[in-house]
């Protein structure tokens, strides 16, 4: 009798059941008047047992999966049914636990079953708490599943060239910096004699030594370093420009009666919806005439325009939230409009400006289509050049992963820093997080 699941899922579901048992059992037992620690201990047991029952059910259901025909659909159905059965079984079993001395019986007249999402009394009901624990366990496991590709990328970045393309994929490996070095430096393949000669030299630093293991000598910085620099310059300058222009326009839209305001804002946002490929054809011709093709200035102007609509909308949302009374008081005190704007509004809007800056920077940093079509070498940014990090004989996956990782870490940090503003960011400031 075999469990019809790949090894990965056996581990995955085992973790899930232990997690669910561990978190769902204590509130139920506490309600019956037992100490918390006993709940935890029993929780582990419940988790392990329900995991084992789950696997047993799956193994027994093999004929059902075969009967469904499609293995994937059959397996999913069987998994859902088995999980449902186990949870229902545990729920029924719970009623047979005898109550201990100091049990927290539900007060006379209070609801005995959950009545709804929000009613306060039902949130202390053990059924609700256990259900919530199971929900939380499901979410945690799903989050882990979501992160697997990202983690895999991080691992691959530290693999050696052969480990990165090993079949079956290696989960345990010896970490090396090869990927990063291949990404950042140009190398030259050496023959055995040259390797021996190189080994005699004592002016080698750690990078040279790592590459020498592979029979390669570092000859200089790779193009990728230049591309990263370009990315920084272009994304940085265009972000600065779009935020400065954006804050001015947003202030005007927020505070003054601009004729045709709705239409103008609509127009500004609609420019953001244009597909890059559509805009690029005429811009390519225009830039060729003006000599802006493959130039910093051209890319900066384009990215500024691309981010401007976003920054105007997002900043308008933030400025709308600053009470007008502050400025009105300042105006009464003799400030001019400009002074009031600079000394009163800007300091108040600083969080909004920071969030907008970071979002704009990320968009420019991630941008690929424009850069691919409008740059060749001098102004080429990093995203279109990661795919072309090819080694001698095959794709250097470790190098690509290293490039991706270097590219992703700032984005991940930013996601955490901006988590309160993410919703605003992705909806152009129209929707606020509670």
């Amino acid at each position, binding site marked *: 009798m075999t469990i019809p699941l790949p090894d990965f899922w056996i581990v995955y579901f085992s973790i899930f059941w232990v997690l669910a048992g561990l978190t769902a059992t204590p509130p139920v037992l506490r309600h019956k008047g037992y100490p918390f620690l006993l709940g935890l201990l029993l929780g582990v047991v419940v988790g392990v047992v329900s995991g084992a029952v789950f696997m047993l059910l799956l193994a027994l259901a093999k004929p059902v999966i075969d009967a469904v025909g499609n293995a994937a659909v059959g397996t999913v159905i069987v998994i859902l049914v088995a999980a449902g059965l186990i949870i229902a079984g545990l729920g029924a079993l719970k009623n047979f636990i005898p109550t201990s001395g100091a049990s927290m019986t539900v007060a006379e007249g209070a609801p005995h079953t959950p009545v709804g999402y929000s009613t306060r009394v039902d949130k202390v009901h053990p059924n609700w708490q256990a259900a919530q624990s199971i929900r939380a366990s499901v979410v945690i496991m799903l989050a882990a599943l*979501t992160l697997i590709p990202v983690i895999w*990328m991080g691992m691959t970045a530290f693999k050696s060239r052969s480990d990165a393309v090993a079949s*079956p994929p290696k989960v345990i490996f010896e970490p090396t910096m090869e990927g990063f070095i291949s990404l950042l430096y140009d190398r030259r393949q050496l023959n055995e004699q040259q390797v021996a000669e190189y080994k005699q030299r004592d002016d080698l630093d750690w990078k040279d030594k790592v590459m020498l293991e592979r029979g390669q000598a570092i000859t200089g910085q790779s193009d990728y370093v230049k591309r990263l620099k370009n990315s920084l310059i272009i994304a940085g300058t265009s972000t600065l420009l779009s935020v400065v222009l954006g804050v001015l326009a947003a202030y*005007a*839209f927020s505070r003054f009666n601009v004729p045709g305001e709705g239409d103008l804002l609509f127009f500004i946002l609609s420019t953001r919806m244009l597909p890059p490929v559509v805009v690029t054809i*005429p811009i390519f011709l225009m830039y060729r005439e003006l000599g802006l093709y493959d130039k910093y200035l051209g890319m900066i102007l384009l990215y500024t*325009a691309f981010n401007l609509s976003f920054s105007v909308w997002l900043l308008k949302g933030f400025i709308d939230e600053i009470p007008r009374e502050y400025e009105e008081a300042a105006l009464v005190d003799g400030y001019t409009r400009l002074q009031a704007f600079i000394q009163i509004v800007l300091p108040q809007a600083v969080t909004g400006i920071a969030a907008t800056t970071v979002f704009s920077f990320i968009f420019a940093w991630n941008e690929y289509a424009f850069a691919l079509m409008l740059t060749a070498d001098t102004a080429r940014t990093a995203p279109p050049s990661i795919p072309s990090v090819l080694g001698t004989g095959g794709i250097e996956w470790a190098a690509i992963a290293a490039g*991706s990782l270097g590219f*992703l870490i700032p984005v991940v940090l930013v996601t955490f820093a901006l988590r309160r503003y993410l919703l605003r960011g992705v909806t152009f400031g129209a929707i606020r997080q*509670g």
Partner: protein
Amino acid sequence: MSHVNTQAFSGRRHLSDGRIATFFIMPTLVLLILMNVFPLFYSLYLSFTDYSVIANESPEWIALDNFEKILTTERSRYWHNFTVTGQYAVFSVGLQVIVGFSLALLLREKFKGSGIITTLILIPMMLSPVVVGLFWKLIFDPSKGIFNHIIYMNPTAGDQWLANSTLALWAIIIVDVWMWSPFVMLLCLSGLGAIPDYLYEAAAIDRASSWFQFRRITLPQVMPLLTIAILFRTIEAFKAFDLVMGLTGGTPGDATETVSVRLYREAFLGKFKTGESSALAYVVLIIIIAVSNLYIRSLNRMREG
């Protein structure tokens, strides 16, 4: 003291509010008109010509011939690309709504650490699509990648996702769902958080079933935000370029060649059919403008409501 005040006052008069508004808004409008509106008019003109960037001939007016090549069934060279894009849009947006909404329901009631979990789930959304596509290419690799090792009992006999013309599109859809379900989740969460508690209390008093509560309270209350999410993702799906280029580049054959990828190939790679691709660009543009119109309208309704 009063003297200073008068001066400031006259200074303010000097730069009237209306003028400040003009000064503040003008740079933005000028830049957007230069970089977006002007190019679009230029390519509208080009779409009626047979211009090619690499040919040394000036554009020749061929009226609607380009559009005929795109839109009429007998002559269309692009029907396949529209079908691929349509399939991709329908399936990926549909799945994103299902996955995103379920995630939001699971995350609705806060628990210890739910904030961190939410943020972790949101990470894929912020990544660069081309880098994501490129990396999933390794993950989908039948022997070196982890995808087949996770999905199949016998990985070596598993499918070659990116080499099979039906599965390649599904591979892109899977990655897109992975990346963008969190977006739908984020919007749904915000919608769920805004539902007033008393609606559920009233329903509970009337002994409404939880299915009834879901259908008559939760769903209609989340609908406006879900609409925004669907429209936004639909627009993005029609623009699909980065992810496809990173993952398949349109291969195998032209099985995953979305309109944008085809457009890029026609306009830039070797062929340089500028006139014809401008016409194709305009067809795409009209579709997108129609959807974005709906999108911006619902955003506005949200902002005012």
